């Protein structure tokens, strides 16, 4: 078992955003979490990555308990994510966005940083090299020196994924990667997600409202409503589940 969530519950004041959520993720799987707006999907990502600490329950990566750890510790353990509302470092260049995410991999200390001694120069050179190689994979190497805020939306989404991968994750959490993409771009994104999964040996959890993407690439789907899991299963089962149809897809949905 790579990632395991057990009885995870979270309250915002009196509002129960996630209740008794369970998830077992094997190495290499691609699982989706879907559900109506405000069902608690993003909150689950926030709980896994330590932005919020679960009110109850446990989340483990391998044998390591994540609840109570800080975000940067969790990222260092191998979980990275993207954001529903893009959260790039806007004023900074594309390459710096990626290089910031290498922080946990770099080794030199404060004194070496203050006097540019020791491992500083070699590590910095390697950092640029690695960042550019990664950007090339995402076809972003030509805009490496632009401020990230000047990129068109689609490129910003790609940069978010590139930045997440720069932390060398085992598990990648994608929060609505297809938002703001048109159907043909979504098609490309599907191929792309399949490819990075293989290339970077990733286990992926995906939140998405674009059913074509979810049904097209995910092996298992977890449906949430009002914080509670209302269905789990393979895409075929979910598409025909009456509760899912009613709460989320709507009658006569074309998926």
């Amino acid at each position: 078992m790579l990632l395991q969530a057990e009885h995870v519950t979270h309250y915002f004041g009196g509002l129960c955003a996630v209740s008794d959520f369970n998830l077992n993720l094997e190495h290499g799987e691609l699982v989706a979490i879907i559900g109506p707006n405000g069902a608690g999907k993003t909150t689950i990502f926030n709980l896994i990555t330590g932005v919020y600490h679960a009110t109850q329950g446990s989340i483990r990566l391998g044998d390591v308990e994540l609840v109570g750890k800080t975000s940067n510790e969790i990222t260092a353990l191998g979980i990275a994510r993207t954001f529903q509302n893009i959260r790039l470092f806007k004023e900074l260049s594309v390459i710096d966005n990626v290089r910031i995410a290498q922080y946990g991999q770099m080794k030199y200390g404060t004194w070496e940083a203050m006097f540019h001694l020791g491992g500083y120069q070699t590590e910095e050179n390697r950092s640029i090299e690695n960042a550019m190689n990664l950007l090339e994979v995402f076809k972003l190497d030509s805009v490496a020196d632009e401020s990230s805020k000047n990129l068109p939306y689609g490129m910003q989404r790609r940069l978010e994924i590139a930045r997440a991968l720069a932390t060398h994750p085992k598990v990648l959490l994608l929060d609505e990667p297809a938002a703001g993409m048109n159907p043909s771009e979504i098609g490309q994104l599907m191929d792309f997600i399949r490819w990075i999964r293989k290339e970077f040996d990733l286990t992926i959890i995906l939140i998405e409202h674009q059913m074509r993407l979810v049904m097209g690439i995910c092996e298992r789907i977890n449906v949430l409503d009002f914080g509670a899991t209302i269905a789990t299963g393979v895409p075929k089962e979910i598409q025909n589940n009456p509760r899912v149809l009613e709460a989320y897809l709507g009658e006569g949905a074309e998926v």
Partner: protein
Amino acid sequence: MATIPLEGTTWRTRWKARWDGLMAKRWMLPVLLVVGFALSFAIPQFNLVNQYVQLILIYIGINVILTTSLNLVNGYMGEFSVGHAGFMSVGAYISAILTTQLLPKALLPYLFPLEVLAGGLVAALVGLVVALPSFKTRGDYLAIVTLAFLMIVKSVFENIEAVGGPRGIPGIDKLTTLPWTFFWTILAIWVIRNFVYSRFGRGVLSIREDEIASDLMSVNTRQVKLQAFVISSFFAGVAGALFAHVLQFISPRVFDIIKSTDILIMVYLGGIGSIAGSIIGGTIYTVLLEILRPLGMWRMVLMPLLLVILMIYRPRGIMGLREFRWFVPLHDLIGTKLWRRKKEASDAPAS
């Protein structure tokens, strides 16, 4: 000489081309440093400029140290500290006590660098104590905590009779010389610039942009914030020590909120998140204050007015978020270009 196209260009683009040409010559920087250092000895030695100008040069150096170090916290990191005068006073008092009470007079000129270092270190330690609670949680407590700190240090010094209480410490030897000022200024700029262009510095920038995202991208935000704040306090202490030994008299009133405000103005005038901006801001403000001195009280009306005008036309200050290329390490400046060239070279034979 490289030819600059003159036809069809405005004076602006022409000057920009000249400027860019100058900035491209990176060997100029070490040359300027050596010349500057030599001058800092020569000027007092041969009285190349009068005493008054020499004094202003020293104040420029001190103010540049203060501005650069505060810029690390307020500009690069995007927090808001108003306590810089407080850290400065710690450095000033520690070194002044060493000079006037503890160290043998004969050795003073030789021990002066150690005094400055001691002032900086104690200020750094105090900085750590202030930073620990302020950075425990996310949020904007720093302004309030540093304001409280500023008032506390002031009343602490006011109430310790051994350091003169409200009257302060008079008769401090004038140990701050032009060469020493030059040395410490360059050291401050160099260390802070080095820090900014390191993984920690990028962490500092990312905290300004989005602290939660920064944490999620593996940056140890708490550690990075502490580092930046401690380095910043250290150099404030250094500046305080230099200041005490040129003013020759310090009292708690010298380091009040007005002093902090002066430093803030220099930072926002020169430009947030910029070493070059800090140097420009510190220099212009010091010089302006002197030029406008005859205006007396009106100065206090004119300076804020200037600042307001600047904020309207250049809200991030003169150099806001921009940098002289001289100050950017080579790999950061041309790393991406080198990578592209290397790639082209390796692609070419393959096809």
